[in-house]
């Protein structure tokens, strides 16, 4: 399989390289940057996963937060062990998302967009009003156990990479084809015996479970979480990664997340200019490079192939 798919082989090599870097590099800052890149890529990829059925799911931010809060509650209040706390995140995010999807996926387009936006705000307001969750101050003290502390970055990167490969596999399977069919024209799959609403919910649940796990990793990476970390803006940035990298292929959001995360690091002391930079890059990418970087690549490849054929 890998022979027929050199791109996939390259991605696996990169992931292994990143894990090794986390294990053997002595520079905590750059290891941290690698984790951010993977986490942002995972956020973008989960957002794009729901785009497969044609819906822009702002609630990606909400389920990211639900995952993070679940892990925080499990580890600091309930005192559960590290891996169980981490695994609780996708479970809870998945369960809540199935309810959310069951209720809301009867709507679509702008209505789903706005309802997912409202849901994200509701969830955030609930955190701020819940004393057990630390209110607006948030929760602190999610540390990996001492004996795992040194390996935590490698574990985090492995989990995040696994999420990326898992979602890639899901997209490549027949399920991914069905999701794309729903986006294209949902009457057709419905007319041939497919449960379209059920499949939409499934798509949302898969994405939310994945992003819940990213949230769990986030809780342990940052050790501190607060409601303001989970505004709709998380989804907006994820969408920026998707758009800049290109929506057409799963590596698009990964490339977008990598570039913007690295760029963001060097803009960090820019104050208000940081927003201007992000704004300009989003607008520029959307208008000048509509297919994103991946789209450019495809066009370039098509161009060279045509050039060859012409000769």
């Amino acid at each position, binding site marked *: 399989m890998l022979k027929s798919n050199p791109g996939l082989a390259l991605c696996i090599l990169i992931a292994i390289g990143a894990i090794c870097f986390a294990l053997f590099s002595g*520079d*905590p*800052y750059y290891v*941290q*940057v690698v984790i*951010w890149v993977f986490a942002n890529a995972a956020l973008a990829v989960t957002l794009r996963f729901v785009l497969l059925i044609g819906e822009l799911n702002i609630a990606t931010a909400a389920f990211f937060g639900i995952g993070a809060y679940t892990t925080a509650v499990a580890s600091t209040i309930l005192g559960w062990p590290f891996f169980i706390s981490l695994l609780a995140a996708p479970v809870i995010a998945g369960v809540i998302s199935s309810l959310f999807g069951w209720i809301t996926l009867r709507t679509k387009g702008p209505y789903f967009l706005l309802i997912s936006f409202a849901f994200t705000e509701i969830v955030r*307001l609930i955190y*701020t*009003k819940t004393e057990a969750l630390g*209110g*607006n*101050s*948030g929760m*602190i003290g999610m540390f990996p156990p001492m004996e795992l502390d040194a390996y935590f970055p490698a574990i985090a990167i492995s989990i995040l990479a696994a999420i990326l490969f898992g979602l890639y596999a899901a997209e490549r399977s027949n399920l991914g084809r069905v999701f794309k069919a729903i986006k294209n024209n949902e009457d057709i799959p419905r007319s041939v015996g497919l449960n379209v609403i059920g499949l939409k919910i499934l798509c949302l649940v898969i994405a939310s479970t994945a992003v819940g796990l990213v949230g769990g990793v*986030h809780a342990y*990476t*940052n*050790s*501190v*979480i*607060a409601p*303001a*970390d989970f505004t709709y803006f998380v989804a907006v940035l994820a969408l920026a990664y998707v758009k800049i990298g290109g929506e057409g292929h799963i590596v698009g959001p990964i490339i977008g997340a990598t570039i913007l995360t690295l760029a963001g*690091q060097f803009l*960090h*002391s*820019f*104050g*208000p*200019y*940081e*927003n201007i930079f992000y704004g300009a890059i989003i607008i520029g990418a959307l208008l000048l490079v509509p297919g994103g970087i991946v789209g450019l690549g495809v066009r370039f490849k098509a161009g060279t192939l045509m050039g060859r054929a012409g000769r």
Partner: protein
Amino acid sequence: MSMKKIIGITGGALLALFSAQTAIADETLKVGISAPMSGAAAAWGLGFEYAAEQAVAKINAEGGIKAGGKTYMLELHAYDNKYNAAEGAKTAQTMLNRENINFIVGSIGTAPVKATQALSERKGALLFNTGWGKSIKGPKYPLTFTQMNTPFEILAPFYGYIKEQHPDAKTVAMITPNDATGQELEPVAIDTWGNLDVEVISKDKYERGTTEFQSIATKIATSNADIVDFGASPPTDVGSMLKALDVLGWNGIKVVPAGTSAGTLSKMAGAAAEGTYLGASADFTGESASEIQRELNAGAMEKLGEALNGITISSYDAVMALKKAIETADSIEPKKIAETLPTIIFESSYGPAAFGGAEVYGNPQQILVPVMITQLRDGKAVEVGRIAPAELKKRLK
């Protein structure tokens, strides 16, 4: 931050690179700031950065800091923590792990400060902050220091003074933003009022960013409370509420513990703000202000269009405390400096100051500067009481 500044930093970095190669005697000591520089709380971050810049410029102009036989020039790096934990963690990583900054001379926002603290304590870096939460201090966090008065320092003398002035006041309505600061201030305020036999008859929270305060004002006006305590509400919001209260005909005692800027308040509410008591505003133009405070304030007015306040000026004090502690410890080792800080008396913008507060927090991590009670009279903040902490008085003797 201006474009000039960015060019300045880049230029400075290049210069530093060259000077490192040519091995000039002076070494640089990086100090960091983590504060909101954009969004609704941008004014705080910008003022904060300004005050620290002045302190750094002053120290560098006077020949830097001497320790261990070397002379250190300070270099300030300010980062936007966007007032949330996730960005706080990112700025912390950038400061501590990338820039290898060992001294954070100011951080604003409970959530981002906590996120910074999680890393700074592990990394062994010194963290000055303006956090109002009690949980941020204690023996668990030996490298964390609070650089301004918090409710635990302010409320008792502040409310006490008000009760003294208005012995007939029996009831208070609390209104505070639904954010970390508001949530941490409220219970302390309720306790403190209780000790003074003033009953809290209503407590409300509003979301930050609210622009319409009609319903809150109506509620307060109909509750007929003797006192309104605006808790952690920023002056802009208080101004809007006071205006609305004035229209509704309410005229009681107005109390703003987090009242940082009298100027803003009076500009927003005009006559409706008359007589308001402020807990964190200092009259940096008046007679009781120190020379340096007046100077800093005038500079900030010119550059930022906003007066300094109890929060923003504190970064100046933190830099000064750091300088004194480094020189006393004769070392730039953060642990040693943290041990030295509670023992020294340094020259803050308020005059001589120190660190203490072990009784409240279990560890001497709280700056000891006077609580200044001001009242808005004829549109100006007038200092009506300056209560130096007993602990500071003892130390200064």
